[in-house]
């Protein structure tokens, strides 16, 4: 039974199913438990967070290979990442007692004056799917609020998003606010959004730039391994 749950979690990650209401890529999966229900059941049955994370990771590895083989598309990656994120959220309270260090914590926000949050939400799903703990501050967030959240939450990474040429300027102001409250050296700042470029990221003193959600995750992974 234990093995069954582990393999079912892996299978449901591959199918991109968060809950029992979700359709998968095979027929007639609606109504069967998804990653959320299976993770809850696994914890009830006393499985360790490590075993469950192993299943989530194994599922995501398969998804990555299918994506590389062009068998899976970006929506499949996102659905699977969402399923992993849902599992990780349930496991979060159990990590410390299991002696597992999370990969890292990321705060994400769309900057002041900007209500566009599609890109930020995609990045959040992908980061959670990659095993990061993500705190999403939302959109239209002023620099001081972001800087204070960094001080309180102590994340390793801050992801800033903007869609407009007018609001992308708030990214620089946010980095200045981090300088002002003394947290700049504690956090790596990664920026992204349609008008943002590598050159702009450098000009405001950001540590990284993600042209899309997948690159954003790769940049965070690269910065993690360098730190």
């Amino acid at each position, binding site marked *: 039974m234990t093995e069954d749950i582990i393999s079912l979690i892996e299978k449901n990650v591959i199918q991109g199913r968060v809950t029992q*209401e979700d359709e998968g*890529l095979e027929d007639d999966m609606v109504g069967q438990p998804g990653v959320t229900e299976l993770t809850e059941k696994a914890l009830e049955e006393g499985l360790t967070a490590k075993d469950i994370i192993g299943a989530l990771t194994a599922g995501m590895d398969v998804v990555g290979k299918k994506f590389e083989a062009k068998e899976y598309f970006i*929506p*499949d990656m996102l659905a699977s990442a969402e399923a992993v994120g849902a599992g990780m959220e349930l496991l979060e309270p159990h990590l410390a007692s299991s002696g597992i260090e999370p990969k890292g914590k990321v705060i994400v926000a769309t900057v002041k004056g900007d209500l566009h949050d*599609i890109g930020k939400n995609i990045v959040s799903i992908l980061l959670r799917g990659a095993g990061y703990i993500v705190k*999403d501050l939302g959109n239209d967030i002023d620099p001081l609020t972001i800087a204070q959240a960094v001080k309180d939450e102590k994340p390793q990474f801050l992801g800033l998003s903007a869609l407009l040429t007018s609001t992308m300027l708030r990214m620089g102001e946010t980095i200045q606010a981090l300088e002002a409250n003394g947290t700049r050296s504690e956090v790596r700042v990664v920026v992204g959004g349609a008008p943002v470029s590598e050159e702009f990221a450098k000009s405001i003193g950001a540590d990284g730039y993600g042209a899309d959600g997948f690159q954003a995750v790769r940049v965070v992974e690269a910065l993690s391994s360098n730190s």
Partner: protein
Amino acid sequence: MARQGVLVEPYCRLNQEQIELIHKESMSILMEPGILCFNHDAMELFTGHGAEAVRIETEGAPCWQLKIPEKTILDAVNSAPDTIILGARDKENSLVLNAHEPRVRFASGSEANNWLEVDVEAFTRKRDPDVEMLVPVFREEKGTLDRLAKAAHLSQHLENWDSFLRTINIQDDDINDDNKDVNKFFASLDNTTRHVMSGLTTVEQLAPTVKMAEIIAGGRDKLRENPIISFITCVVKSPLQFVDDTSAKAIEIAKHGLPVVLSSSPQGGSTAPIKEDGMVAQINAEIVASIALAQLANKGTPVLYGSVPTRARMDDLNESYGFPEFNQYNIDCVQMARYYGIPCYSSGGISDGKVPGIQASVERLFSHLMVALSGPQYLHYAFGLLDRTNTFCPVQAVLDDTHIDMIKRFATQPNVNDAEVTESLNQIRKVMGTSHKLYVRYARSKIRAGEISPVYPFEGKGMVDETLMLARERMDSILSLPRRHLDKETRDRVFTEIPGILARLKND
């Protein structure tokens, strides 16, 4: 299972009253002034069925002024089948054309003299020689048998190319009037399993061409069940003249009982009135008179209403396909064909532009889309035609296939019903309960069902338009695939039994 094309909700320009009015106008034309007839057999067929003929004294060929009453036309037109089959070597590629069903299939055409190659060459920038750019360069070649075979091979691998209507005029040194038809049909049939349509060079070539098709189809009866070939003949020279040669061809083809397009191609402003009703009434009169001729020769023979109305340019009086009027005339004709219950061969996807580019894209997309939406059963000119009908460009055909796919997706009927509404409400409610509020996961099943339009396949990566380069790559990759030739036994029989087939085609 035949090829399905796309079923459209037909866009109409004419209301029922206007359709009836144009019909009456056409019938009036066929009585006064009537139609000139340069073919004796055609004159006799009509006069045997209620028409009047008055001999016109000319110094040239014999000619009669025919006055054809409405009853003669309608009796004959009503004997034409409303559903016809255009068969194919591979039966799954056959087409079932039902005049009452606006299901569109896309075909090539016409018989262009030129074949346009797209080469890609590197150029350096004059003011900065370090900058090199790849630019498409065009090279015009003449039509040959080898290139016709290449086009047929290309058609086999372009999904939306429903029927191979001969693309180019073969001008090889060893091709003449006595062997042209058998060789062009053979080169086409030996390289594509789609339906093959072409005109005839001489009426004498009809018998060997049909015999070859019978060998390939598996016998005389099999060819009638699965007519892998069909013909097109423009019986009327506009305005209103039955041509001796093409009338003879229409009569003979009809006697064989094989599908034939009876077409007319007047130019609004030169060989037909430029005003819409006058143009449509005249071409309609010309086509229904041609259909009547075929039906009088062999009642019930399968025919298509072949409308190719164009408009004359007012700067040089050449025909033009890029004007909005081209679309108007063609859409009206589609409606007239539907009125008579005869499958329609219409025209769209052609350009006056000499090379693939902005003019070609705008003009061809305009008629590809608008005429297709009117619901003709067979839309010819849809692949690779440029410079009016003078040039066929295979790279353009590759682009057209993609654009037709887009049109077919657009024309698909909306899927709105209780089950779909319930599913959408579930999606919306579930997504609004998430933090990310994204519907992306619900695209997955639609992608796999093929319902999601793909990204434009010839999109460049930088600030250079790479469309033609990428389309050229796709064409090269298709042409490197093995050809679907006829089996050896069939080929051997064709080479042994059909006179005039060039021995050099054996080695292809």
